[in-house]
């Protein structure tokens, strides 16, 4: 059982550091964003499980040959009120750390959910007062603002896509369609659930490279996935023009209207602070020079690796290893 804990610890280190760094530098995720998304989820989940698992297994190692008998022995020790010395201080420490980390992750996930939901609720409330539904479609609303803005606010049946006046003025009909399909793809593919999980993962362990890199990658990948959905209905040039117009209108150079018209910006343009530089440029680059998707065999390889990452920690936890 002690070997299982060493193996889990090694896996945890690999998934916390070299693996996410390598994946974040790889170029293939832009070619098959869906496959890359699966792999990132496995790295995060497998990493978390192996971190907790390593400490749990190591802490229980003196008590039995497998998780079940060791847990039973632990329950007996606690139940009969024996001193912690039976197990040894270091092992008690490892068990406590495993329990704390597990609780920390679950609580952060729940707290993040509550925080996000509260912000969404407040936003939706104001949106209902300030925006107007388009053509009797209650899930698409227009707000009177000069900046070209488009976004979606997830909320189950009450999900809305919001467009600004400024956007409607700047975009052609087909460009607008591209924006709408893009935003609805976020809602239909439930991207907010991924963002929630990875935002929680990042605030739970901000000091590990894996949570930062995963958060950033997931943010970029969902944009690619939504772009791909839009490309089923409009061509690359249309989508690219839509991106360019909106980016030019929201950026610091916003006053320069790409169509050569007058400025479409209000005076209250907030400063552009950007967390992940060049994400939009990468999106455009991808549309300018489309690369073929990974072959089926390559995708199968990545998916199998993802499945293994998820399967190994539970298997190691349950297998009697000595």
């Amino acid at each position, binding site marked *: 059982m002690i070997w299982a804990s060493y193996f889990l610890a090694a896996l945890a280190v690999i998934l916390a550091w070299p693996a996410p760094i390598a994946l974040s530098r790889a170029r293939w995720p832009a070619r098959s964003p869906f496959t890359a998304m699966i792999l990132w989820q496995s790295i995060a989940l497998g990493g978390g499980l192996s971190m907790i698992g390593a400490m749990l297994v190591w802490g229980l190692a003196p008590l039995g040959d497998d998780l079940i008998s060791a847990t039973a022995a632990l329950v007996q020790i606690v139940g009969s009120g024996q001193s912690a010395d039976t197990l040894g201080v270091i092992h008690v420490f490892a068990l406590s750390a495993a329990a704390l980390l597990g609780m920390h992750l679950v609580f952060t996930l729940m707290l*993040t959910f509550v*925080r*996000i939901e509260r*912000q*969404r609720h407040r*936003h939706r*409330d*104001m*949106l*209902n*007062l*300030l925006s107007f539904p388009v053509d009797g479609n209650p899930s698409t609303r227009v*707000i*009177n*603002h000069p*900046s070209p*803005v*488009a*976004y*979606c*606010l*997830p909320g189950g049946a009450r999900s809305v896509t919001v467009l*600004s006046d400024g956007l409607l003025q700047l975009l052609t009909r087909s460009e607008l369609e591209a*924006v709408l399909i*893009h*935003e609805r793809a*976020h809602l239909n593919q439930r*991207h*907010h659930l991924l*963002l*929630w999980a990875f*935002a929680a993962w990042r*605030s739970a362990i901000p000091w590990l490279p894996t949570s930062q890199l995963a958060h950033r990658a997931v*943010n970029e990948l969902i944009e690619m996935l939504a772009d791909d959905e839009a490309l089923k209905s409009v061509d690359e040039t249309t989508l*690219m023009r839509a*991106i*360019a117009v909106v*980016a*030019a209108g*929201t*950026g*610091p*150079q916003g006053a320069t209207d790409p169509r050569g018209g007058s400025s479409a910006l*209000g005076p*209250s*343009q*907030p*400063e*552009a*602070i*950007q*967390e992940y*530089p*060049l*994400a*939009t*440029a990468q999106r*455009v*680059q991808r549309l*300018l020079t489309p690369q073929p998707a990974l072959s089926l065999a390559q995708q199968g390889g990545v998916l199998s690796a993802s499945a293994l990452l998820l399967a190994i920690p539970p298997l190691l936890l349950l297998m009697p290893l000595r």
Partner: protein
Amino acid sequence: MATLGDLERTVMDLLWAAPEAMTANVLRDSIAHTPAGTPAGRELAVTTVLTVLSRLEKKGLVERERDSRPHRYRATTSRADHTAELMHDVLVTAPDREAVLARFIGNVSETEAQTLRKLLGG
């Protein structure tokens, strides 16, 4: 039947358009002339209007003038200011913003704007 949300919206629209503060009675009569005002031909009760007003007051959208009876109500800030505030929330990078709502394009830095211009200008 109009929902409470629809009523809040109608009341705010009236208050935003009104040049001065209004009493609940005046508001009730004005609502009767809007599409949301006459659900199934029935008149809206003043108490319902007062409920809506106190909800809006709690949200900080409406303030009450207490020096006269009955109390008169007005909007705290203009519709345009509220919109600007809401859009500011959308456009500014805040923690977890991208999890709350997904923007078509995130904020673009000067470097990125240059890269974009280069990519699209050629």
